[in-house]
């Protein structure tokens, strides 16, 4: 089988280090059913940074301020390669990821991206939030609100400037890993009685006035929360992104974070798709219904091929999006690729899971085979973090220059 993505020597070395670590952790984990210790968490987190162990330690050794601590493209490579290697261990991996604290760390990446777009943010990231996250104090991403939904401009959460702090009121919904130490809250900013625009405020979740209740969500390995913000006092310096004078309503820093969210989720969904296609191909080779195994039928082979090709294209788009993000290219270009990646990633993974279900037959719905769980995740990413219809609107308006199609 052909290796689709060529890797250089450095990438191979890094991948091998990551795979060795995962091997070790999976073996350990299968023996102990207890919660994973902080040491291991730190290690996984370092790995999760994907920059992997190598770039990550380099960065800390030299404290290079201009280096992005999270090279998105490396993280993507790690994720899809992990999926290719452990395609048959989806259940184990996802249990492991949720128990190990990987997921809140993953959510922290959204904030890290936003921070890394400015020098002040970069300093905060390197000196405060990154070391904290490595100790398990991660940052959740508080964007969605019950009354805003897809229309982020309509959020009601408001931070009113009062002397040296903001007073924050509002509520958030569908917040992954909100129980972690910090939350990056998307909020309306009001100064001197005037609405300034929408910005990002980092809030310590232990602050008085914050309460949350878990939601009963079927698909995800991590918990989702409804969060209430009731007269929460937040120091002024915690404002990490605000709209500039010339920007309308929402600042560039916020878009930076939203693009990042799309790129990270398309990586994840492509990785899930890789697992599903590998499972389906392997099953097709063994499954015999009539005289020969079903892999020999063109209708099966072509469906698998088409799905795999779409998935690889989505991976290419995600790679491009990650690279443009890493290189800090023009926001329009990052936005174009991030949206294309999210659209095609989620749809390709859906197609893969659909074909995989067809190949497995009714067994595809057997929870033990994990196909149905992967399918649910793939389906979710057509809705989250934003629905694909809005993604198509973005592409129509920004790439093609067509008139706005919604009000």
């Amino acid at each position, binding site marked *: 089988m052909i290796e689709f993505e060529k890797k250089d020597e450095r990438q191979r070395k890094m991948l091998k280090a990551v795979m060795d670590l995962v091997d070790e952790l999976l073996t350990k984990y299968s023996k102990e059913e207890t919660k994973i210790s902080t040491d291991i968490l730190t290690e996984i987190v370092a790995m999760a940074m994907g920059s992997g162990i190598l770039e990550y330690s380099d960065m800390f050794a030299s404290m290079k301020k201009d280096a992005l601590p999270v090279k998105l493209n490396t993280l993507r490579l790690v994720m899809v390669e992990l999926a290719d290697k452990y395609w048959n261990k989806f259940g184990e991996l996802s249990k492991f990821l949720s128990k190990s604290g990987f997921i809140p760390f993953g959510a922290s990446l959204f904030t890290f991206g936003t921070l890394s777009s400015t020098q002040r943010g970069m300093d905060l990231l390197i000196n405060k939030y990154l070391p904290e996250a490595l100790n398990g104090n991660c940052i959740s991403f508080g964007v969605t609100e019950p009354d805003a939904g897809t229309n982020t401009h309509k959020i009601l959460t408001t931070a009113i400037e009062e002397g040296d702090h903001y007073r924050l009121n509002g509520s958030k919904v569908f917040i992954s890993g909100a129980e972690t130490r910090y939350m990056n809250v998307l909020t309306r900013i009001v100064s001197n009685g005037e609405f300034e625009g929408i910005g990002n405020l980092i809030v310590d979740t232990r602050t008085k006035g914050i309460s949350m209740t878990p939601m009963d969500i079927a698909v995800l390995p991590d918990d989702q929360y409804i969060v209430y913000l009731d007269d929460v006092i937040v120091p002024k310096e915690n404002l990490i992104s605000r709209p500039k004078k010339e920007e309308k309503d929402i600042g560039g820093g916020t878009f930076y974070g939203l693009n990042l969210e799309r790129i990270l989720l398309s990586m994840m969904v492509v990785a899930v798709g890789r697992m599903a296609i590998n499972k389906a191909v392997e099953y097709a080779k063994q499954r015999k219904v009539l005289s020969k195994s079903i892999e020999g039928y063109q209708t099966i082979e072509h469906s*698998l091929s088409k799905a795999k*090709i779409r998935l690889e294209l989505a991976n290419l788009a995600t790679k491009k999006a990650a690279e443009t993000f890493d290189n800090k290219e023009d926001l329009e270009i990052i936005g174009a690729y991030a949206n294309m990646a999210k659209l095609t990633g989620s749809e390709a993974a859906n197609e893969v899971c659909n074909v995989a279900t067809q190949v497995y037959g009714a067994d595809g719905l057997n929870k033990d085979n994990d196909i149905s769980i992967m399918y649910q995740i793939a389906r979710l990413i057509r809705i989250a973090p934003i629905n694909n219809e809005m993604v198509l609107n973005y592409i129509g308006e920004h790439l093609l220059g067509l008139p*706005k199609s919604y009000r």
Partner: protein
Amino acid sequence: MIEIEKLTNDQELIKDFVESLSKKYDSEYFLKKVKNKEFPIELWNEIANNGYLGIIVPEKYGGGNFGIDDLRVFVGEMAKNGLMSFQLVSQIIVCDIMHKYGNDEQKNKYLPEIISGARCSFAFSEPDAGTNTFNIVTDAFKEEEHYKLSGHKTYITGVKESKYMLVVARTASNNDLKDISKSPTISLFFVDPKSKGINITPQNIGFRSTSEREEMLITGDVQYDIYFDDVIVPKENLIGKENEGIGYLYNTFNLLKIMIAAMAIGWGKNVLNKAVEYAKKRTVFEDPIGSYQAIQHPMARAITDLELANLANQIASKACDSEEDINLVTTYANVARYVASEAAYEAWDIAMQSYGGYSLDREYGIITLWQPILSTRIIPISNEVILDHFCKHGLGLPNSQ
């Protein structure tokens, strides 16, 4: 419509050149040419004078010395501006084969001439081989001083007006034609289409349901059948080594697929661009139709698929440039050709839908690209065969043929 591909400096120059051409040769020029059944010779000469026929041939023969990735940009830009033709594809292919496999004498004799404009055809496909490409029967029988060529080729672009053609023929007649797992022994010949024993007839490639024969596509291309009846070809016209043609053609095929993919993406952008501009202005009810999601979303999907296909084609052309393993390059080129042709068709379809009845009017330039775009799903092999190949090499499944 914004362009999101980052081009190199060389590629920017190529793009500028193509854009300068597009200012002179617009759709009216092509419509007039097709009406008069004339080859777009003015455009051809300008391309030749600027060295672009030999774009991937070294400068000492008059070429541009560019890489395959640059060729991809050139072809894509030409198609996007409505300037691409199958003749240009044939010419670049023949230049490449001559440069890679011809001997010094042949290279010095022919390359400068064909790079400066003498048209060439690539005579490969046959009625009985089809998608099983190497199952050709045209035979070159070796005699003392020459080869004697007999057989039938079909869908050969522009051969009647060509000065030369590159003919692919069998050179060992003991091959078993029935056994498709065995490739026949093949050699390449440079042949004068005016040689004695050659009979050329145009094919009827029109789309209008009239009784009149229609032979020319909007690209200015005409396809021909060629009949060879004991045609004498001098020994020195053999290109490369005897019986080793298949090895040469594997490379050529990948180059061909990359060019066809670039063409498809370019044509797809061409029709999509027109449709987007039209949809911004066209108002049927209260708003421009481009503001309706039923129109806008398929357009957004089309541009996404075209851009993704472009990424795939970049991977293929760069793998060609860095001379990766031939199986890898073949899989990349196959995937690129497949997704590019499907994306182009998708773009064309929504363009038709947006223009409504006007789409059928040749002046709007949508229906005229129907056949060229459709053909990208077939040339040089069909998408179904690509999927068969992909099962084996991309997924590790057995052949389902």
